[in-house]
């Protein structure tokens, strides 16, 4: 039983790492612009798909991965420039629909460019399973976890220590004040979308060797990432990471111990229960209304 549990945890953490990265992407954009970007999952798909096609076109693997990340960042920034910036004063629901439209648009574009086939990427290093007791994992699982951990640390460093990072946070607190102290708000938003897309692309290329991808695989990941961000508390980046990992583990334990058919339902029941008790998520701060 303990062996099994350990295996469930490995599985949960691998899956949860991806949720965490997508959730972190949600949080960064939310913090910078108050927009919940439902096209977040498409970044994962675009990252993975461009890597696959560059690689198939003969680009050496590491370069293909790097180029895919850059392509995705460009898409993220274009999204901000063309769809979010023109709609700056729109209400929350309106921006939600805009990002949903963007997500459909990106999926449609991917369908046209890459077709509807399912593709995989080769693992980063040879696919020899590693055994720990009775549990086994692939080297790629370790790359996923390690890659996620590094990305999270890098994001933390960026927002805690660099001037640009702090400037982006300032935009989120008060846009007017930020622009008064000389911060170029539009540029900061652009950077935030870029980083968020970057995280999506990293998640995509880390996980595709295990899970494959196709033009429509972004939807589910986007949804799970949103769950992660909410579970952790919207706006809290470490909350999103914790939320993602927790969600992955809940799904895996739910499938392993209770019922694999209802595992997603179990995960949502847990999320609902958390929200009923803590209406602002695990690490989110309740904002009081001033009257």
């Amino acid at each position, binding site marked *: 039983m303990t062996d099994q549990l350990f295996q469930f945890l490995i*599985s949960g953490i691998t899956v949860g790492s991806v949720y965490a990265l997508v959730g972190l992407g949600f949080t960064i954009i939310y913090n910078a612009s108050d927009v919940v970007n439902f096209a977040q999952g498409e970044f994962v798909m675009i990252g993975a798909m461009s890597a696959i096609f560059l690689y198939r076109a003969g680009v050496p693997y590491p370069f293909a991965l790097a180029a895919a990340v850059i392509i995705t960042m460009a898409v993220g920034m274009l999204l901000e420039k063309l769809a979010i910036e023109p709609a700056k004063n729109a209400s929350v629901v309106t921006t939600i629909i805009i990002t949903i439209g963007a997500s459909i648009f990106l999926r449609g574009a991917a369908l046209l460019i890459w077709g*509807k086939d399912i593709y995989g990427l080769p693992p980063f290093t040879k696919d020899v399973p590693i055994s720990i007791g009775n549990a086994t994992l692939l080297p790629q699982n370790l790359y996923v976890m390690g890659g996620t951990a590094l990305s999270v640390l890098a994001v933390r460093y960026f927002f805690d220590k660099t001037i640009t990072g702090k400037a982006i946070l300032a935009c989120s607190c008060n846009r007017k004040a930020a622009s008064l102290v000389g911060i170029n708000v539009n540029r900061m938003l652009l950077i935030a979308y870029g980083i968020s897309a970057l995280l999506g692309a990293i998640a995509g290329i880390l996980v595709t060797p295990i899970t494959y991808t196709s033009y429509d695989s972004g939807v589910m990941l986007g949804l799970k990432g949103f769950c992660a961000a909410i579970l952790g508390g919207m706006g809290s980046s470490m909350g999103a990471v914790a939320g993602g990992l927790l969600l992955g583990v809940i799904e895996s334990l739910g499938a392993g111990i209770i019922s*694999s058919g209802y595992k997603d339902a179990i995960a949502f029941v847990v999320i609902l229960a958390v929200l009923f008790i803590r209406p602002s998520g695990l690490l989110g701060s309740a904002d009081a209304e001033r009257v």
Partner: protein
Amino acid sequence: MYKTVRMIMVFAAALLLCSTYTASAGDTLKIGSFLAVTGPASFLGDPELKTLQMYIDDINSKGGIDGTKIEFIHYDTKAKAKDAKNFVNRLIKKDRVDVIIGGSTSGNTIAVMDLVEKAHVPLISLAGSVKIIEPVKKWIFKTPHTDRMAAAKIFEDIKARGFTKVALITGNGGFDKSGRAQCLALAPKYGLVIVADEKYGNSDTDMTTQITKIRSTDAQVIVNFGFGKAPAIVTKNIRQLGVKLPLYQSHGVASKKFIELAGEAAEGVRLPAAGLIVADKLPDTDPQKRVLLAYKNAYEAKYGPVSTFGGHAYDALFITVNAVRSAGSTDRAKIRDEIEKTKGFVGTGGIFNMSPSDHLGLGLDSFHMVEIKNGDWVLVN
């Protein structure tokens, strides 16, 4: 003022309802199709549509069926039942087709069966579920082998190898669920015990949890019913966890894509499939061989690797064409009667012998058990 404008806008919106009315055309055979060309079942719908288009163009360029040209009308359901229903409605009421070919998935087909029965239009489904033809419905036929046949073929092989304890793992789609139901129902007949019955979501990315649970049972073989990327992930996860049990997949993965995705992990996987994927390995005496190779070569020359799914569309199209030819008319009822009389038609799925009580007309022998070896299909004897 504002209010008046609002009213005008309401009026304009409602006027959009009143679009033009299209009447049906004259002397052609109208074939309509509703296939899942995009969406989760696109690997079914895509080759099906390509096959239909290729052969219909071919027939028309050769002067049609005894002079009757085929007009082909197609809609993409994205595998959504509601769309299937709307499109079939559109085919029947707006396009007024004579025959319908589709849907790609059982769900899409089942969704429109009542409608088609009421409208008296012959329909040949390209989906697997046995529910489509059992009980027999007057206007509804199908060409792919049923999921029950697949389960039976798998169990036959398992029994022949002397195993008795089976672990099932299936997805949450219609194909998966219906395959699972057939397995559960058929197992006792073959003296097999289902010792595990695990499920996953078709968009899940990791199934090690379910396989870990299977590992802790005393299963001797694993059977996975599913299509798309999930069976490839299951296959890889099984190997990753070092589970050495023989793995059976369903005919849902009978395409080169599966071997490409699962890679080395696919070695040794067995599955029941139509003759198409092993066409060149069949003995020359096999009556199907000529048809299979002709289809395979024609398709691959134009679109790339062939899959058995396109073959179902080929069968459906030529059963229709033969029926129209022998009916000598495009009358729906006559075509239906002739489809039901199909005998000895050599298709890609096997040799079809339909009857009023059998709207498929394939026997278990039309399935071949194949194994994946060195990245290719090999016939199991």
